[in-house]
C-alpha cells in the first residue's frame, strides 16, 4: 500500500501504521514524499514492512518494535532511537545519535553515521557500513556496534558493557575505553552481524574489538580527572 505524505498528514500515516494489528493481510507499505519530516514511522509495534522513499527528518522509526523499516535515503537525528526490536535499514547516511538508547533490534546504516552513534544504547545491534563520527557508543551499556569504516574521536567514552568492533582506524578512544582481545565468541558475533546485514566481502578477522576497562564504574578519587 502506498502512503503519500504530500496527500496525508504525518499523524494519519503514523496512526495507520501503528494500528495494523495481527489480523490484517496488508503488511507491506511504502511511504512517498517524506521531505525530511520528523518522527516518520515512530512507535510502530506490529510485524510489518515499511519502505520510506526519500530523506527523513528527526527520530525516524523511533521506539520501533517488531516492524522492519527501510529508508531509501538519508535520515536526520536519532534514527531508531529507543528501538526495542525489529529492524531499521538506512540506505544513505545517518545524522547524529543514530540508535540512541536502543534496547534491541537491528539498525543497519549503509553510509556513514555522524556523531554520538549508539549513545547510551542498552542492547541493540548497530551495523555501520561506512564510518562513524565522534563519541560513538558514549555511555553505551549493552548490545553491539560493528563499524566497517573508521571511528572518530573519543570512541566508547565512559562505556559500560557494549561491544564495539571496528575495521578501520580509530581516531581516539574515550575515557575508560580500551582495545580488547577478540575471542571465539566475538568472532561468531561479528560473523552473525555481517550475515544479518548482508555484508559478504568482510571477515571477522579484519575487525578489532573495543570495550570498557571498567575503571570508572565506581567513584575513585584517583580518576577524578576522567569523570
Amino acid at each position, binding site marked *: 500500500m502506498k502512503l503519500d505524505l504530500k496527500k496525508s498528514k504525518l499523524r494519519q500515516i503514523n496512526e495507520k501504521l501503528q494500528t495494523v494489528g495481527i489480523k490484517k493481510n496488508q503488511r507491506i507499505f511504502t511511504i512517498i514524499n517524506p521531505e*525530511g519530516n520528523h518522527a516518520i514511522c515512530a512507535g510502530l509495534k506490529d510485524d510489518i514492512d515499511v519502505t520510506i522513499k526519500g530523506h527523513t527528518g528527526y527520530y525516524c522509526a523511533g521506539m520501533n518494535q517488531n516492524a522492519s523499516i527501510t529508508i531509501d535515503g*538519508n535520515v536526520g537525528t536519532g534514527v531508531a532511537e529507543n528501538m526495542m526490536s525489529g529492524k531499521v535499514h538506512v540506505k544513505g547516511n545517518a545524522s547524529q545519535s543514530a540508535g540512541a538508547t536502543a534496547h534491541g533490534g537491528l539498525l543497519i546504516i549503509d553510509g556513514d553515521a555522524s556523531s554520538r552513534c549508539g549513545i547510551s544504547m542498552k542492547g541493540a545491534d548497530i551495523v555501520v557500513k561506512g564510518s562513524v563520527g565522534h563519541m560513538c557508543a558514549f555511555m553505551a551499556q549493552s548490545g553491539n556496534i560493528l563499524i566497517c569504516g573508521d571511528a572518530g574521536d573519543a570512541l566508547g567514552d565512559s562505556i559500560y558493557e557494549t561491544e564495539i568492533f571496528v575495521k578501520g582506524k580509530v581516531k581516539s578512544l574515550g575515557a575508560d575505553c580500551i582495545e580488547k582481545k577478540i575471542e571465539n565468541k566475538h568472532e561468531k558475533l561479528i560473523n552473525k552481524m555481517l550475515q544479518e546485514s548482508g555484508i559478504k566481502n568482510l571477515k571477522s578477522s579484519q575487525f578489532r574489538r573495543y570495550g570498557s576497562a571498567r575503571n570508572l564504574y565506581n567513584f575513585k578519587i584517583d580518576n577524578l580527572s576522567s569523570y
Partner: protein
Amino acid sequence: MCGIVGIYLKNKKFEKSLGKLLSGMLKNMSSRGPDSAGFAIYNEEKKYKYKYSICLNHISFSDFKRNLNKELKKYKINQVSDHVVIKTNEKPEKMLQILNKKFKEISIVGYGKSIEIFKQIGSPERVVQKFNLEKLEGSHGIGHTRMATESAITTDGSHPYSTGEDECLVHNGSLSNHNNLRRELKKKGSVFTSENDTEVAAGYISDNLKNKKTLKETLLSGLKDLDGFYTFITGTRKGFAIVRDEIACKPAVIAETKDYVAIASEFQAMAHLPKVNSAKIFEPEPGVVYTWGK
C-alpha cells in the same frame, strides 16, 4: 534552537529564482525559529557602487527621504515595508557617518557592493512575505529563523548580522565568552548595536578579515577564540562558508548538486529545492571549515 539556511548558486540559470528558493527554505524552518526572521541576498549592483540596507524603525519613509535629500544628491531608494535600500556611489566611510549622525533612530542592517539585508520580528512566513523575498534575484543568499534565548526579540536582535562591507553571519547556538570578546573588539574599534552574542562573532570575523586574513583562516581561528555552541553560515560578496564547533550539537546538513550548494539546519528546509533527492547530501564535520565561491 534557531534555523539557519543558505544557498549558493553555481548555475546562473537559477539566479532569477534565488528569492523563491530561499523563501521556501526559511518558511520550512519556522518550527525552529518562530520569533523573528531575516535574510541577506547577494546581487551585484551595476549602476551604483554601493547599497545600504536600513530599517527605518518608527520613522516615516517621507520624512526619511526628505532629510536624506539634504545630505545626499545622487541616489536611488527602494522602500520595502519598513526597510529601505539606498543605492549610491557614496563610499561607506562618509555614508555611514551621515547615517549615524543625522538619522539616529534608524538601524543600518547592512551595506556593500552586493548585499541587501532584511530582518524583522514576526514569523518567518510573515517576514518573507513582508519583504517580498520571492521576487528577489541574486547569486547567493543566507537566512535565519530565530528562537530567542539570550537577548530580546527585536529587529537589532534578529539575524543576519552584518558588521563589515558585504559581510553577514547567521548563527544557531549560543556563545559564552561574548562579553569579554566584545570588550576586546570595542577597544580595537569595532562598533556593536546590540547585546547579542552573534553580533560579537560577526564583529570578530570582520576584524580578522580587515587584518587581511582569508575567510577560512578567520573561521579556523574562530574555533579557538569563540567559546560556545555554534553552527555559523557566513556570507561574503563572492561566496559563503559554514563551520560547526568541535562538539557539533547544533545541526547542519549540506546538499550539493552541479547547480547549487544548499545548507540548512534540517533537511526539510531544502526538500523543495530542484533535484535535491539526487543531490550529494552530507553533514559538515565538526571543526572543519567548508567554503564555496571566492
